[in-house]
Structure formats: structure tokens, C-alpha cells
């Protein structure tokens, strides 16, 4: 008897195909697919199907079962649900022995491959009283007899029966991409089940998935997904029935019970399919990390051949319910093996040892996670951040912070405090978490694997730039601090992220056969073209001066950005140099030099094949805040001449720049690179620099009453600081051994007089506050001014610290 009587062409077993009008139509419908599959008989198949439908059908009667496997996965039998129901109703009255179940399960839960399917099938077959309906051929092939009957609505006993163990295991073990796996039937609550709460959670095996599949119509949910069960942890009962139609699923029943079916088992116990990944008790959904093979590799002490991927496991922290310390190594191996094979990218993680030989590396693993887990256990509370994958610096910071918090709490609350109480309360709740174990560990791993695959990057340095550099900087800072402090340095662990080989995908848009033209299939990689943007360039005539000004600024901004890209590239060269091979290094150096020159040209506005005419370009750049910052960053890379040139240009236009900088006040960022440049300057350069600052023409003219240029400089923080630096440098040169030339330099003396004059003249209030006052200024001034003025200068400029 078929529930969908209409759809049934014929019954299993020796029954005749239905003939007659209905039979004819059905036969026609059937023969078409028949011919599809029966390749060898294509030639035989008569062109006129209507006539020969019966014939064909008759011919194929003996082979009618040939395709059972294809169609049903050999999982379907015709079952009499009513009888099954009655049978099970009997069973229900006699509760099973709990112990038996448990023992049976424990031994079987590790069985991922469904070795006991056959046994179970036999036992089940005993249950099925009415055998005459079964086709012996089918029975041989079938390993389960689930009857996915749906008389409408939830009839508990139906599910309780053979329908029970319809777990389709994710195909991880069968070398396919993992797929659907949660297939359990919604089971109504039975009072007799309360005792089995714990057991329920502990076992769920995945029956072996041997062949076809599944899925026809959308799942019918007897109980809506996500409904928390009424009693305790009955998470098994939030389920999906994947195929309401009968006989599609091959869902072999996992052997779970040592006792035959006929023995005392409550129907609901049958539903509790052994769960391979749970071991005896539910997981606290605390964030104990899932120990995938990659994390284990990490645990094994970091950069084992650089196979860590801490940053890429940022998301694994979300995973819940990892197997606890008593994790079965076999499980791991089984799981790991599969995880590696589908994703070729993951091969990179194992690098040398190919995935086909994971066992040697894995043998080290089982002891590790256990120990680590034990370490983590005392810490684990709800939602503790999973820190195993973070940069070591980051991890340290996090731990410090957490300890601080903990201490704070302790001090606040006296005892273990809120957190402690909270913790135990949580843990209790966790034990009875109604949402636990909705997914198998394998399923969770699969989902996380997908996420991880998306995180695979060909260049982790580039993709994860901010994170990596941020912590590198932190480390440098803390290293610098430590150098001053304690002697021995802490172990500097490095964050190593594995790299996946770049796969070149030539994207080919989907093409359909037999279609006229190309059909556009819009997807993530190939989004539909919404806007047709066309670039049009404006003609010169239309522009007004305002526009021109705006455009000029825009042009400058573009130049700045271009130069910035060059700068970032140049800054990166050191790293690339270290990574590159010997032969490539000269090329790299050349490239770097070239880029530096380009940067300089950009700065000075030099077009190739043109002499630099004005500072205008440079000044424009310096008017923009990010331009100034960029110059500060570029300076260390420039050659001394180039750097000097920049310095001169800055000094020349300083008042203008000061005016423009009034809002941003970013000029002081230039001081440090300028000072670095200054320390290498020869004396004549220093002189001319001072000249620029003072804005005196080459030949000394009649001294102006007030040197506006210099005055402006003095009133500005940057200007004053720069002046000090220059003066300091001059003093250095003078006081050094071969300083005679500076002494003899008239210009220098002139300039010094000018400078000191201006310094004396300017009211103290107007004087800016310099970033730092060099100590040798006093001695410098003493050469050029008398004692009285020296004292004035001293107090004004606060040249001497401390008590005189």
C-alpha cells in the first residue's frame, strides 16, 4: 500500500503493474524515465511509446527493481503504517531498560561508519510483521525501513517506530561536501522520556549514508524549528523532516540497542539516535574552542613550520560545544581527514605533510587538546573570548584586562562575587540548555569550515593589514619600553598567518545550452549592471576661476594620494626584501629607488623633462594637512640633497605655510624629520637655511626696521622650534673642531645678529612656545651679544633650566 497511491506505479514485490486506463497513463509516464535510464535499451525502445508502453513495462518487469537504488537509495519499502502503529503502541507500554540502552550506546556512538546497520535492519525487520508486502529484492538492498508516512499531523507512534532513526549523516565520510544532516523526526513528549534526558543528548550516531539522497519537497515540520522542548534537554525534537514523501531517503538505522527491537524499548528511545560527537553529557555552550586540526597545530607551539592561522580563526570562537577532554582520537582523525580533502585550500595549512597522511601529525594532537581544555576549563565561563587565535600581544592584553576585571569584582564583592555566582548559575543552566545539540559537531564544523574558507587569503599581510600592523606596533612599543626597564626580554611570539596559494579563477558567466544568445545570470561575482557610467572630460573653456581653483586643489589631492601609494609601497620594501630571493633583491632595490625619485618629483611638481621652476607645487601640497604628514613620512627616504631641498623650500615659504597651518597645526610633525636632516647638514647649508628663515637676500641690504618674515617665524611654534634647531646645529658646528669656517663666514655672523636682534625685539608674549629648547643656544648667543643682552635673552627664552 502506498500512501501516495496515485503516484505509485507498482508495488514492490511480485505484484503486477497496474493496467487499465490509469495504468496506461501511468505506464506512459513511467516509461519515459525508464528509457532515460535504460541506456542500453534505447535502441530497443520503440519510437511509439504509447503502443508499446505495456510491452516495455512487461519487459522490464524483471528489472523493475534495477533502479531502486537510484530512486530510493534502497531505503524505501512499502510498509503498513497502521500495523506499525499498533506494534509500537504495544511497545510503548513496556518501558525499556535504561541501562541496556546506555551501554549499548556508549559503545556505538563512536561508530561513524554504521557498521551495525545490518544488525539493526534485521532487528527492525523482525518488528515488521507483515512481510508479504516486501519485495525480497528490496529487503536485501534496504537497510532501514523507515516509513515516512504522513497521514497528516503528528502521529507519534508512527514516528516512534521505524521512522525513528532517520539520520542522514553528512557526507563528510563519503567524500562529498557536507550536507544536510539534521533529520530527525519531531517526537512528541512522552512522560516516559524524562529519564532519558541525559541519554538523549549523549548519543547521536550518524547512520551511514550509502547512496542517494534525498530531498524532494520542502521539509514538513511537525514542530516548528526552534521550539524549545517542554522538558529538559530534548533538543532532539526540534527537527526537520526532510522528505515527507515516502521512500526517498535512505536512512539506515544505526545500531544502538543491543536488544532486538521486540524487546522492551520505549518508542522514544528508538528515536534517540546515538550521537557520535556528544560524549555522555551535553556540552556547555561555553566557548571552549573547537579544536580543529588547525587550532591544534597552533597549540602545538606556534609556528610549527608556520602552520598557524590564528587570525583566521577569529570566527571559530563562536563555535560551541566542542568535545571535551575525553575526545575520541578516532573521531578527530575521521573528522580531520574529511575536512582536509574537500577544500584544496586547506592543504596549505598542512603544507609539507600531505593531507593523505594526517595521522602522524594527529597523533600528537589528542593529548594536547585535552590538556589545553583542562587549562581552559577553570576559566571557561559563558562567553569568554576565545583567545587562542589572536596575536600573542593581543592575547596578553586581553588576559590582563580580564584579570583586572576579576580582581575588581572580587574586591567589590568580597567573595568570589557576582561572577562566581553567575558562573555556577550559568553552568547549571547550560546543563539543561534546551538548545544544546541541535547540531552535531560535524555540522558545526562544516559551517565553521565554510566560514573559514571564506577567510582564507592569499596574502594575509594585505588582507589583514590593520590588525597585524597594529599589534606589531604595540609590540615594538612595549619592547622599547622594556629595553629601558628590565633586562631580559620576554619571548616575542610572532603572529604567523598561513597563506593559501592564489588560484586564478577565470570567471566564466553561466551559459545555458541551447539558449539563444547569452542569458545573464546575476550572482555575487557577476552582479547585474545597474548604471551605465560614462566618463566625460570637461572642456577647458567652461571653467571659471573658481572652478580652476577647486580643480587645482583637487589635482593636488590626487597628487598627494598618488604619492601616498608610492610611499606605502616604499615602506613595504623592507619586508619584501626579507621575503625575496637573492636574485630578486637588486631589482627590488632599483624599484625602490625609482619610486623614491618619483615621490620626490611628485612633491616638487617636477614633470619629467622639465626643470623645476617654483615652489608652488610643493607649497600647495604643504597647505593640505595630509600633505604635510606625508612629507614628514617621506623625508627619511629621500637622499640628503633632496631632503635639503625640501627643507629649504619649507623655510622659504614658512610664513605662508604658517598662515595656512593656523587651523590644522600639523607643522610640528615635520620637526623630527627636519632635525634628522639637519644633523647631517654642512655649515654652508645651515647658513643658507638660516638665511631662508630670516628671509634676507643673498647680499645684505640695509637692515629693515622689523623683519616681518622672521617675526612671523618666531611667533609660531613650528617656526621657532625650527629656528632653534638650525641655530643649535650651527652652534654644534661652531663648537666642533673644524668650525673655523663658520666663524669666518660673514653671512653667518650677519644672520646671527639679525636673529638675535629680532629675538630681543619681540615681546615675550608674542613669542611662541617651542617644542624643545636646545641647550647650546646660550653658548651660541654668547658669541654674538654682550652680557646684558645675553641675560635678557636668557630670561626671555628660558634658555637655562633650573636656578641660575
Amino acid at each position: 500500500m502506498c500512501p501516495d497511491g496515485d503516484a505509485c506505479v507498482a508495488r514492490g514485490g511480485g505484484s503486477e503493474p497496474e493496467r487499465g486506463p490509469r495504468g496506461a497513463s501511468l505506464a506512459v509516464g513511467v516509461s519515459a524515465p525508464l528509457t532515460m535510464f535504460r541506456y542500453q535499451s534505447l535502441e530497443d525502445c520503440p519510437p511509439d511509446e504509447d503502443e508499446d508502453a505495456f510491452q516495455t513495462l512487461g519487459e522490464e518487469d524483471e528489472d523493475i527493481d534495477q533502479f531502486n537504488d537510484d530512486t530510493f537509495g534502497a531505503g524505501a519499502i512499502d510498509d503498513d503504517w497502521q500495523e506499525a502503529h499498533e506494534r509500537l503502541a504495544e511497545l510503548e507500554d513496556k518501558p525499556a531498560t535504561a541501562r541496556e540502552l546506555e551501554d549499548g550506546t556508549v559503545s556505538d556512538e563512536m561508530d561513524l561508519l554504521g557498521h551495525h546497520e545490518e544488525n539493526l535492519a534485521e532487528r527492525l525487520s523482525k518488528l515488521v510483521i507483515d512481510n508479504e508486502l516486501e519485495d525480497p529484492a528490496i529487503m536485501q538492498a534496504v537497510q532501514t525501513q523507515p516509513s515516512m508516512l504522513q497521514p497528516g499531523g503528528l502521529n507519534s507512534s508512527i514516528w516512534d517506530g521505524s521512522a525513528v532513526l532517520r539520520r542522514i549523516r553528512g557526507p563528510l565520510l563519503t567524500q562529498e561536501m557536507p550536507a544536510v544532516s539534521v533529520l530527525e523526526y519531531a517526537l512528541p513528549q512522552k512522560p516516559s522520556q524524562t529519564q532519558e534526558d541525559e541519554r538523549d543528548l549523549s548519543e547521536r550516531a550518524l547512520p551511514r549514508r550509502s547512496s542517494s539522497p534525498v530531498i524532494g519537497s520542502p521539509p514538513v515540520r511537525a514542530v516548528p524549528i526552534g521550539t524549545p522542548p517542554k522538558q529538559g534537554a530534548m533538543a532532539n525534537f526540534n527537527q526537520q523532516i526532510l522528505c515527507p514523501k515516502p521512500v526517498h531517503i535512505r536512512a539506515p538505522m544505526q545500531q544502538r540497542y543491543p536488544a532486538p527491537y521486540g524487546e522492551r524499548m520505549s518508542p522514544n528511545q528508538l528515536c534517540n539516535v546515538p550521537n557520535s560527537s556528544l560524549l555522555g553529557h551535553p556540552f556547555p555552550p561555553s566557548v571552549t574552542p573547537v579544536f580543529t586540526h588547525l587550532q591544534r597545530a597552533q597549540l602545538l607551539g606556534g609556528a610549527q613550520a608556520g602552520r598557524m592561522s590564528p587570525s583566521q580563526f577569529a570566527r571559530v570562537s563562536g563555535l560551541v560545544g566542542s568535545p571535551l577532554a575525553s575526545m575520541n582520537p578516532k573521531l578527530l582523525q575521521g573528522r580531520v581527514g574529511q575536512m582536509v580533502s574537500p577544500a584544496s585550500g586547506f592543504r596549505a595549512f598542512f603544507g609539507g605533510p600531505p593531507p593523505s597522511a594526517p595521522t602522524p601529525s594527529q597523533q600528537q594532537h589528542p593529548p594536547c587538546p585535552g590538556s589545553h581544555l583542562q587549562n581552559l576549563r577553570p576559566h571557561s565561563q559563558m562567553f569568554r573570548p576565545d583567545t587562542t587565535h589572536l596575536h600573542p600581544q593581543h592575547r596578553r592584553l586581553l588576559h590582563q584586562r580580564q584579570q583586572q576585571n576579576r580582581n575588581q569584582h572580587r574586591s567589590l564583592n568580597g567573595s568570589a562575587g557576582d561572577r562566581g555566582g553567575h558562573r555556577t548559575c550559568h553552568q547549571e543552566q547550560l546543563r539543561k540548555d534546551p538548545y544544546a545539540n541541535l547540531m552535531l559537531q560535524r555540522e558545526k564544523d562544516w559551517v565553521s569550515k565554510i566560514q573559514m574558507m571564506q577567510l582564507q587569503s592569499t596574502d594575509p599581510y594585505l588582507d589583514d593589514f590593520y590588525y597585524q600592523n597594529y599589534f606589531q606596533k604595540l609590540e615594538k612599543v612595549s619592547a622599547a619600553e622594556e629595553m629601558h626597564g628590565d633586562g631580559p626580554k620576554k619571548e616575542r611570539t610572532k603572529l604567523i598567518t598561513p597563506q593559501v596559494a592564489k588560484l586564478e579563477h577565470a570567471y566564466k558567466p553561466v551559459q545555458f545550452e541551447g539558449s539563444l544568445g547569452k542569458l545573464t545570470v546575476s550572482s555575487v561575482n557577476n552582479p547585474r549592471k545597474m548604471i551605465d557610467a560614462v566618463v566625460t572630460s570637461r572642456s577647458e573653456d567652461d571653467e571659471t576661476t573658481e572652478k580652476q581653483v577647486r580643480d587645482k586643489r583637487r589635482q593636488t589631492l590626487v597628487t598627494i594620494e598618488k604619492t601616498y601609494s608610492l610611499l606605502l609601497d616604499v615602506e613595504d620594501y623592507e619586508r619584501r626584501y626579507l621575503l625575496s630571493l637573492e636574485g630578486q633583491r637588486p631589482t627590488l632595490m632599483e624599484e625602490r629607488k625609482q619610486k623614491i625619485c618619483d615621490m620626490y618629483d611628485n612633491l616638487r611638481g617636477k614633470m619629467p623633462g622639465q626643470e623645476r621652476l617654483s615652489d608652488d607645487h610643493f607649497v600647495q601640497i604643504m597647505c593640505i594637512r595630509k600633505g604635510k604628514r606625508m612629507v614628514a613620512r617621506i623625508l627619511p627616504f629621500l637622499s640628503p640633497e633632496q631632503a635639503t631641498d625640501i627643507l629649504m623650500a619649507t623655510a622659504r615659504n614658512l610664513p605662508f605655510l604658517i598662515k595656512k597651518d593656523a587651523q590644522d597645526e600639523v607643522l610640528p610633525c615635520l620637526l623630527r624629520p627636519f632635525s634628522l636632516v639637519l644633523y647631517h647638514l654642512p655649515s654652508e647649508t645651515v647658513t643658507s637655511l638660516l638665511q631662508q628663515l630670516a628671509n634676507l637676500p643673498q647680499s645684505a641690504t640695509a637692515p629693515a626696521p622689523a623683519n616681518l618674515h622672521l617675526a612671523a617665524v618666531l611667533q609660531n611654534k613650528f617656526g621657532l622650534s625650527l629656528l632653534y634647531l638650525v641655530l643649535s646645529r650651527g652652534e654644534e658646528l661652531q663648537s666642533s673642531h673644524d668650525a673655523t669656517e663658520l666663524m669666518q663666514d660673514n653671512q653667518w655672523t650677519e644672520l646671527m645678529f639679525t636673529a638675535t636682534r629680532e629675538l630681543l625685539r619681540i615681546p615675550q608674549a608674542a613669542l611662541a612656545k617651542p617644542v624643545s629648547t636646545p641647550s647650546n643656544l646660550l653658548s651660541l648667543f654668547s658669541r654674538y651679544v654682550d652680557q646684558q643682552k645675553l641675560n635678557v635673552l636668557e630670561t626671555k627664552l628660558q634658555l637655562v633650566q633650573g636656578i641660575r
Partner: protein
Amino acid sequence: GRIFCPWGRISPLPSSPSPPPPVSWQLFYSFFKSLVGKDVVVELKNDLSICGTLHSVDQYLNIKLTDISVTDPEKYPHMLSVKNCFIRGSVVRYVQLPADEVDTQLLQDAARKEALQQKQ
């Protein structure tokens, strides 16, 4: 049984159930990763502001916060008992950060690099 499933073998699920996030979010992801463990305030598009410690973030910029408290006057009493939460990335309007945890120069560099990458 002699029922033939006319559509043959159906592959159960696609290899990636959700589309990958845009490349332009990589910087945000990297940035938020560096903020894990810090206190932030997340303002959602429904005007709810949640203050908490950033526990984790993923490539879709979904955020998990621990020890949360609703910053605004507690006109959201249903949040009183909530200690930890998961926020889907698409509903976030703002994330307020501690300023000293951010290296703006590095962030600018990262943004420039990402822009360069996208151009290529």
C-alpha cells in the same frame, strides 16, 4: 517500489550556504579584530544603543558583546536581564570606539591599501 524520481540525484546543499562578504569589509573586519576585548557602544538602526565589551567579530561584521548594558535611559526594559548578545552586522548603524585604541595613521594606510587593491 517503482517510483522514479524524475529529477534524479539532487545535491543536498551548495558548498557555501551564504555569499561571501564584500572585499571592502576586510578592513573593517581587521580593524574590529584589533578592538576585541575593548569596550564599545553599538548603536543599532532601531536606535537601541548597547554598551559592552567586544567579544568577537566575523567577516560579516556580526558582533558579539558581553556584559552589556543599554546605555540610554532604560526604556528598553526587556534588555535588563541580557548579559551577552549577538548582533547581526547589517543592523548596526554606529560603533563608538575608544579613541586611544585606534591608530589613525595605520587606519589611513590600510584604507589606502585596500583602495589600491580594489582598483587592481
